[in-house]
């Protein structure tokens, strides 16, 4: 393993340890299985959908993803890496509010927000909740509190920001899957910092060039995505150069593309002292239902919070919250640098996706 401090002899030791401690082979009574299967309620099998065959349903965890195509399948997997593939509804449409929102969004020069995802129900019903299993928020907070004691000024700002946000999550009852801080500049540059779990890397995307680069702090390593491999339904793999995603980063591109129909207008409410208008959409995709609620600041006509929920049948399985929006604040160009930092190694990487049916 390159850059891996775990030496070969240790790998061998671990390998031997695992082999020596494999559980004994307990035979299976095939007749009993068949009998059990035939007795079972037919409805009990409906959740059996989380193998590779349902992969196209399990990948799009970011709340902004599109219906799957061959191209977008690969790109959605890229989202797992870059934490930046966005989903917006096919429809949104209070006629006046939406037009104003879109107009205001179009005028935005920079935007920052935090995206948080929670698992609801069991993992077998929760798409891609496997990606982050059983994170421990308390430990993540404690780790940052320790780091804060010796942090320089620049790092201190980031740590304090992360701590503030994470502490607000401690009251959540659902299981936290991930927290990502996203900063966008000029509609084409995007930086995503993974805050939880693990906060040891960030990803920079340039929507104009299609460049996607990840920086791993712990390993002092930079990886540039240059190839994509799409695994077809017949098992064949097709390799190609990474496709460009959009002329602008997804946050802007998807808002621009929003249609203006079939939107439910919700009663106004107050969030953190801010008057907001709710616009709710519902969309069915591959047996799943997405509902998305855009809480728009009445005064600025810009999104204040965005909630997204994924249902399988009537079961809520995963939800996302985007909040802490900051619009048009100056963002340093260095944040979006794709240059190799001093002391870093670099390599080219590949992303994998599945062909959609």
């Amino acid at each position, binding site marked *: 393993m390159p850059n891996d401090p775990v030496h070969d002899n240790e790998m061998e030791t671990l390998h031997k*340890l695992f082999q020596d401690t494999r559980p004994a082979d307990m035979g299976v009574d095939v007749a009993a299985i068949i009998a059990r299967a035939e007795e*079972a309620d037919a409805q009990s*099998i409906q959740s059996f959908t989380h193998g590779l*065959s349902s992969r196209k349903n399990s990948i799009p965890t970011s709340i902004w993803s599109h219906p799957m195509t061959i191209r977008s399948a690969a790109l959605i997997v890229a989202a797992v890496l870059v934490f930046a593939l966005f989903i917006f509804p096919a429809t949104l449409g209070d006629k006046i509010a939406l037009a104003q929102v879109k107009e205001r969004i179009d005028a935005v020069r920079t935007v920052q927000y935090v995206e948080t995802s929670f698992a609801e129900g069991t993992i*077998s019903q929760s798409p891609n909740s*496997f990606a982050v299993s059983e994170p421990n928020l308390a430990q993540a907070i404690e780790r940052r509190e320790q780091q804060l004691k010796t942090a320089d000024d620049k790092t201190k700002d980031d740590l304090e920001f992360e701590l503030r946000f994470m502490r607000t999550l401690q009251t959540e009852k659902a299981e936290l899957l991930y927290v990502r801080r996203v900063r966008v500049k000029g509609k084409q540059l995007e930086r995503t910092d993974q805050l939880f779990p693990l906060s040891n890397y960030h990803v920079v995307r340039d929507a104009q060039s299609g460049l996607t680069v*990840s920086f791993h702090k712990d390993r002092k390593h930079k990886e540039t995505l240059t190839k994509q491999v799409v695994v077809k339904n017949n098992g064949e793999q097709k390799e190609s150069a990474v496709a460009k995603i959009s002329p602008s980063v997804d946050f802007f591109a998807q808002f621009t593309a929003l249609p203006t129909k079939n939107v439910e207008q919700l009663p106004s409410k107050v969030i953190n002292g801010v008057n907001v208008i709710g616009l709710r959409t519902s969309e069915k995709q591959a047996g799943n239902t997405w509902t998305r609620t855009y809480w728009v600041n009445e005064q600025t006509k810009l999104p204040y919070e965005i909630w997204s929920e994924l249902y399988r049948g009537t079961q809520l399985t995963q939800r996302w919250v985007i909040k802490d929006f900051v619009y048009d604040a100056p963002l340093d160009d260095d944040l979006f640098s794709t240059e190799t930092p001093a002391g870093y190694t670099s390599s080219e990487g590949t992303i994998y996706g599945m062909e959609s049916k």
Partner: protein
Amino acid sequence: MMDQNTLKRIRDGDAKAFEQLVCTYQHEMLCIAARITGQVADAEEIRQLIFVRIWQSPEKLPHPDMFKAWLRRCVVNESISFIRQQRRKREGLLNGDVEDQHDANTMAEKESDAQHLRQALNQLEPEQRAILSLKFDQQMAVRDIGLVLEQPHTTIQSKLERAIKELRSLVSNARRSRDAQRPSPR
């Protein structure tokens, strides 16, 4: 590896073909599930549940080329789901409860590497256990693990490295603890 004909026969309800599938993969499935759940009995139940579902819904079986990865993913997902359900059931209890579930006759086993490994694995995240099992039990390449778990191989590589480091530390601690409890030679 499952061939097209065998899978077709299973779809047609051929019990013999199904038995062939069971015999081919039963131990591997048990091994992965046991590493993740920490309990062979739980692993047996998970394995049986998956076989039951395969027999009930053979039309869901993937292409033969993808079958093995698909099956492994089913085992991993079911095992992690099982752990979550168990954790929710005992929400509010301390982590040490796992030890309380063991009966007295496992005390002697605690001296063994198997017990140290199991204890160490139980302290890792379920996903880490899955990656370690696929790597060291099934001897899979990082790229193949990535395909099974639907994650980029670079992500798997990073997670594997981290899991190994944590496992190494936990196993070492367990051994040191055991050695410290042994009477010193006079």
